[in-house]
């Protein structure tokens, strides 16, 4: 859409989550890993949800996972989103999960338990987002 250029927020400055978004901007997926108990968790919190330690850091993720659940949205909450799109809760193989999109295939092809891997796409505000695509398609590229 043409219009006045709006200066986008620098997501890397966000408290707690800046490193996550900075990695996304570089095309990398990271997740918080507890330095004491080893637990991966998401969303980022100031302390580990398993042992309450603040001694955690962002570590690279393989970006491979499986669809825990998915729903195709036909009526978006705001006009910024173009329907249909597939919202999914993806279990990533290091033992954490996140809300995301499944892209790279028709919505009707997305199924629970499907193997997926991360793919960086543009979000509604132009910022990069970590979406996921079917694993087979990724391997065929």
């Amino acid at each position: 859409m043409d219009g006045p250029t709006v200066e986008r927020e620098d997501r890397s400055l966000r408290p707690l989550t800046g490193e996550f978004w900075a990695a996304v901007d570089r095309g990398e997926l990271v997740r918080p890993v507890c330095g004491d108990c080893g637990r991966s968790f998401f969303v980022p919190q100031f302390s580990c949800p398993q042992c309450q330690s603040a001694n955690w850091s962002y570590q690279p993720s393989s970006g491979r996972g499986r669809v825990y659940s998915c729903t195709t949205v036909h009526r978006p909450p705001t006009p910024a989103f173009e329907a249909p799109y597939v919202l999914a809760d993806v279990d990533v193989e290091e033992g954490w999960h996140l809300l995301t999109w499944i892209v790279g295939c028709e919505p009707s092809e997305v199924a629970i338990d499907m193997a997926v891997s991360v793919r960086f796409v543009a979000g509604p505000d132009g910022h990069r987002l970590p979406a996921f695509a079917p694993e087979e398609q990724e391997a065929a590229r």
Partner: protein
Amino acid sequence: MSGPHLLQQAAIVGVAATEMARRLDTTSAEISLRAALAALDDAGLTVADVDGVAARWPGPGGTVFQPGSADWADVFGHPLRWVCDTYPQGVPAALDAAAAVAAGLCEVALVFGGQAGAMGGAAVADYTRPDNEFIACWGSLTAAQFALVAQVYRHRFAPDPERVAAIAAAIRSAGSDNPAAVMAGRGPYTAADVLASPMVAEPFRMLDLCLATEGAAAMVITTAERARDLRQRPVAILGGGSEWHRQQYVNPPRYDEVWGLGADAARRAFALAGLGPQDADVFELYDINTYEVVRQFEMLGLCSEGEGADYLWEAGVGVEGRHPLNTDGGLLSYSHIGWGGPTLKVVEAVRQLRGTAGSGQVADAEVALVTGAGAGAQYHNVMVLGRG
């Protein structure tokens, strides 16, 4: 235990709901006050009797400070002894208010709220568009959060879509018969109508999902002792409980964590009441979507996981059925009013127990079950009410 439980030393003595519509040409404050005054009048009380308030302060005027309930002291023109902003509606507020009056923190607690002039022409209410940075960027909304739970259920149990849709049709038909409902006269509905409505977020079609409307609701809670001298036959709070799994709209709800949400609260509520879910004569359940109704009958233990749609198909959810359900038309068809929707459930349950529920009256209803929130919201609450 000797004597009644603390919760049972309080009673609901007044209820009210204003007119309901898609849009009302007034303010949230004005409509909320109108509901509050009507509930007091229903009880035979006045503003001067109120010494406890659970409400949101919507402005204009006042401040943005918490507790907003204290802003209402200026409207009522006298000081208060107890305020409760934590969750000032529905089951949690009724339980908090009951505990407050039973403990002597105040004597007459007024719980009220709603919305008007608030929807601003949006397709969905702003409270259904979460602003968390890991949710909002994906275009999630309340319906989609609940859909993520329902999709796992469908994947595992493949419920008959017609039997699920029949539940929405029954609730919406009850709303069609209720002259006060936003969707009054729009039915009756069949399962086929529900299945033919536009898809919103799979598996939810438009007619599976609740309204986003305007209006307000209120309830008055006082001691059982004072209740005896008031205008209405009191309604007793027999038991209640809440479960807060986690904050909503931060992490997506997961079927394996939330499908049974409320089971512990329901066990505690019915244990206090000395009853079981099979003893409820009428069910005013939080029907933010059709699958949530299925879920709650499974959560209550009235049927097994995966069998809810078949169970309700056979049991019947109409006024003549085994489990009369959302007799006012519920959130699907009567109204859903922001900070007042959960209170509407209590209002209808109280009217059922008084025998004044109108088109949806269940004959000789003595025990009513009221619930709030749900799996996609990641918290749930349960209250058992009885004829006083």
